[in-house]
């Protein structure tokens, strides 16, 4: 079975359906589906053929919970074999309930413990600049509840202050944070010097525009609101 068999957006629910278990994380998985699709279908410059190219775009799934949508999109785009999805969570499957970069081609970081992706993304973005690679961008995806972890705020402050404009953060806001973010999530980024944008997380055209409109001299934060 190849990716071309299941390569459309409409195929994603079926691909997710190949994976079973992990009931607890099912809602989180679905909240990321449209953002992931738009990123891999229209925004990111990376394919199964270029996954080791130093000039590829990097996508870092910081919020490693509920990776079914991520695996489904990777399968739809040919990074994974569709057959592999069925073994999700088995001991010898590369696909766990949190992704592992060492096991899955195209997965840039292993994640699951919250609050690690932004620091890794900032380091990646800095290193690409140091190497003179001006083309690739680094996109990290976090959740609104994940922002509770203080490590995120270390990265938000430094990336903003240094003006790391090859870095983008997408915040999936499904209102799962326990204590809320008075003033809005985007404010946390804007006050540190980021270009902060908010869009509906199911609106592909709006996501595409928010993710691709230039933001010179500033990192980009896109808050994608999703009703869960």
């Amino acid at each position, binding site marked *: 079975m190849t990716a071309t068999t299941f390569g459309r957006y409409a195929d994603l629910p079926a691909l997710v359906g190949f994976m079973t278990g992990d009931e607890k994380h099912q809602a989180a998985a679905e909240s990321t589906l449209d953002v992931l699709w738009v990123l891999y279908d229209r925004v990111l410059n990376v394919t199964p053929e270029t996954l080791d190219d*130093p000039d590829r775009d990097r996508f870092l799934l910081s919020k490693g919970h509920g990776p079914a949508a991520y695996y489904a999109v990777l399968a739809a785009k040919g990074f994974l074999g569709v057959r592999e999805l069925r073994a999700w969570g088995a001991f010898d499957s590369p696909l766990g309930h949190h992704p*592992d*970069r*060492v096991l899955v081609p195209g997965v*840039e*970081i*292993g994640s699951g*413990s919250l*609050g*690690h992706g*932004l*620091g*890794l*993304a*900032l*380091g*990646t*973005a*800095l*290193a*690409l*600049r*140091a*190497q003179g690679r001006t083309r690739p961008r680094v996109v990290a995806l976090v959740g609104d509840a994940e922002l509770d972890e*203080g*490590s995120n705020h*270390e*990265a938000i*402050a*430094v990336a903003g202050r*240094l003006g790391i404009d090859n870095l983008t953060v997408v915040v999936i806001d499904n209102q799962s944070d326990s204590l809320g973010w008075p003033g809005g999530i985007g404010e946390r980024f804007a006050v540190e010097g980021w270009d902060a944008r908010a869009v509906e997380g199911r609106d592909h055209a709006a996501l595409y525009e928010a993710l691709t409109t230039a933001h010179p001299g500033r990192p980009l934060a896109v808050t994608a609101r999703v009703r869960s």
Partner: protein
Amino acid sequence: MPRNGPPSLSTVDNVTPTRMREAFVSTALASLETDPRVTVVLADISEDRFETAAARYPERVVNVGIREQLMVGVAGGMALTGMRPIVHTIAPFLVERPFEQLKLDLSHQDAGAVLVGVGSSYDYAAGGRTHMAPGDVALLDTLPGWRVHVPGHADEAARLLRDSLEGDDRVYLRLSERGNAAARPVDDGLVTVRSGSARRGGVVVAVGPMLDRVLAATDGLDVTVAYTATVRPFDRAGLNRLVAAAGQADVLVVEPYLEGTSAHEVATALADRRHRQRSLGVSRADEVRGYGTAADHDRAHGLDTEGIAKAARDFFLV
């Protein structure tokens, strides 16, 4: 004083600082010039010493402020693109505070870095418990695959850093304010510094800065004294050979951090023979709520020459 008792000790216990930190800075600065892979990630500590380099290489020398989780995360991200990051601050804020970042942003990502810590154990004694981290090596020892170097001299520190930067693995270079009068070989695991007689009663392993004190403390004992500046991987085969050549399979390990940190390595190295071992190091029994100097803490933990001498006599002269 008995014939086998300790010699006069004051000079060894108060050895001149070996300036490992300066050796680290100059080696790192030179590597930035010669190796485009090398980066330096700081969390304010030593920032002044890298100011000029940061101006020249703003993306390769990054001070993230007092943000140690980010310091390690940034290093992990850099390594994922093929760079070779040096990560540097005081030991407790390098190993203990961002420990999950070491576990996940480096180990789990299979990303490498060279951690360079200063202020090991109670080097900054007047700073109190908040600035002490005698458990650093034991903590890192819970993660597979880390190389841990504990140099006893500035020249060893420079050499170990240069060698580490050429690789892509995970390294902890544990620098100390104190050390030995002379540099020793650092590339071959355990190095015999003093051989006992044909009937020698065992082996003493001195780690890094403990060597001069161990030599003074065991001056009258018929034992082999071996030195190492690398404790992970531990030279199991080397220890096994040294013990096999001694009359007794008795091993005393003197480490400048938590006592018994390498006891499991010794046990594994000597699993093929009946043996005894004793570990000296920073006591696990109590938090020593004292300030003062590192020498004061050495005395409190029995790691001054007198304390080592007494423990060695008790262990070997049974």
